[in-house]
């Protein structure tokens, strides 16, 4: 029986990537980012990549490493702030960025994975995003046609996997990972824990194993926080019950 388990990012990536490929990589900001896979992609040295992700890392973190190593030709993202190298390359015309509204990007990836070549959305109608795209009325409202996205390889970060490839994500580290797991021709999952078959209850699987080709346990890296924001612990604890925005950014 074939196994899906690999020793590490390098072996999981072996023979998978090539120049000119399109790669999806999960994460929102620095949360839920497959960091070992990104490092292995950098080490692989493949070039002229198209990278699809909500962001392209930020200074010193995540996909920024691959960008800084001159491996990326084009980016599809919704937000690329806090990334000076990307900024300068973009302003100099050395890299192409296709800005996608975040929900359109998410839905395009979901559509790609679900065999839907195109769909209509109100998002972006009448804006630069709709330029060059088909627009159309349904029930008196205008919509923009957007197309599905697929990748040669998808990098997914999950919390737990079993040997079948069933995945569970943790809190907001879920973000773009589950859709990308459906939209890659080959999907590699970087996970924090490999658990035994049966330890993930069938009703609680987030990504069924059918979508996952290769799995490895991430190295013991520290997860980064982009904006550490806390509130002081009161002498007598008092919670508003709802978001206290008065915290301090550290």
């Amino acid at each position, binding site marked *: 029986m074939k196994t899906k388990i690999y020793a590490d990012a390098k072996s999981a990536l072996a023979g998978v990537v090539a120049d000119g490929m399109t790669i999806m990589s999960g994460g929102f900001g620095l949360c839920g980012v497959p960091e070992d896979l990104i490092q292995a992609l950098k080490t692989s040295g493949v070039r002229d990549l198209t990278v699809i992700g909500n962001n392209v890392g930020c200074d010193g973190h995540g996909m920024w490493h691959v960008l800084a190593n001159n491996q990326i030709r084009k980016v599809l993202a919704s937000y690329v702030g806090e990334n000076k190298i990307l900024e300068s390359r973009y302003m100099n015309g050395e890299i192409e960025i296709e800005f996608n509204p975040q*929900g359109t990007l998410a839905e395009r990836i979901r559509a790609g994975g679900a065999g839907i070549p195109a769909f209509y959305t109100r998002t972006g109608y009448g804006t630069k995003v709709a330029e060059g795209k088909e627009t159309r009325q349904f029930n008196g409202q205008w919509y923009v046609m957007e197309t599905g996205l697929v990748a040669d390889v998808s990098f997914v970060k999950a919390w737990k996997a079993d040997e079948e490839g069933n995945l569970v994500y943790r809190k907001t580290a879920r973000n773009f990972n589950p859709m990308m797991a459906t939209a890659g021709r080959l999907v590699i999952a970087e996970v924090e824990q490999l658990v035994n078959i049966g330890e993930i209850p069938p009703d609680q699987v987030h990504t069924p194993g059918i979508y996952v080709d290769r799995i490895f346990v991430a190295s013991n890296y520290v997860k980064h926080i982009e904006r550490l924001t806390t509130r002081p612990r009161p002498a007598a604890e008092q919670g508003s*019950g709802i978001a*206290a925005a008065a915290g301090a950014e550290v």
Partner: protein
Amino acid sequence: MAWTREQMAARAARELQDGYYVNLGVGIPTMVANLIPEGMRVMLHSENGMLGMGPFPFEGEADADLINAGKQTITELPQTSYFQSSDSFAMIRGGHINLSILGGMQVAENGDLANWMVPGKMIKGMGGAMDLVAGVPRVVVVMEHNEKGGAAKFKRQCSLPLTGTGVVDLLITDLAVFEIDRGGKGAVLVELAPGVSVDEVRARTEANFRVADVLARAT
């Protein structure tokens, strides 16, 4: 006397209703989270995949796997749910979020909004803003009435690239509050900050607007 940022947030908080699901943008809108009236159930949505945002964590308790759409560390509540981005934006696009409060660079009298890019400057991207204004049935924009140089931000037409067309229902500035008709029937001045006159608002506004028959005067 123009409203402070805190007072603008307080005015925006008056748009909340019991049982609402609400998305708050960064800046002044975020401050609305602290102004939910006692006894009112309001659930905060974070478009990166969370419903039921809690307060910021206590020092030393931040979790890198738990951030809001502004990438700040936050906490969960007992009733929180997490979901993937496509489901989060299905919520938004499908009209299930009751209210979106967000910032703006320019608003036009027909409800057009510009808040994502300035030509010639680095484009960071629109993030989820275009989805929010296109999908949420009630959109409230909170912004300063004028640019630092004095230029009007509430305009006949936006000069900056648009985030959405005909999407703003209510505009709250430091001077006044305007109801805007998405169908193009124009804007109505409905409320003034203390000590601000209709004439002052007219002088500092490019957009056409009518004045409501009964004009609220904040105290």
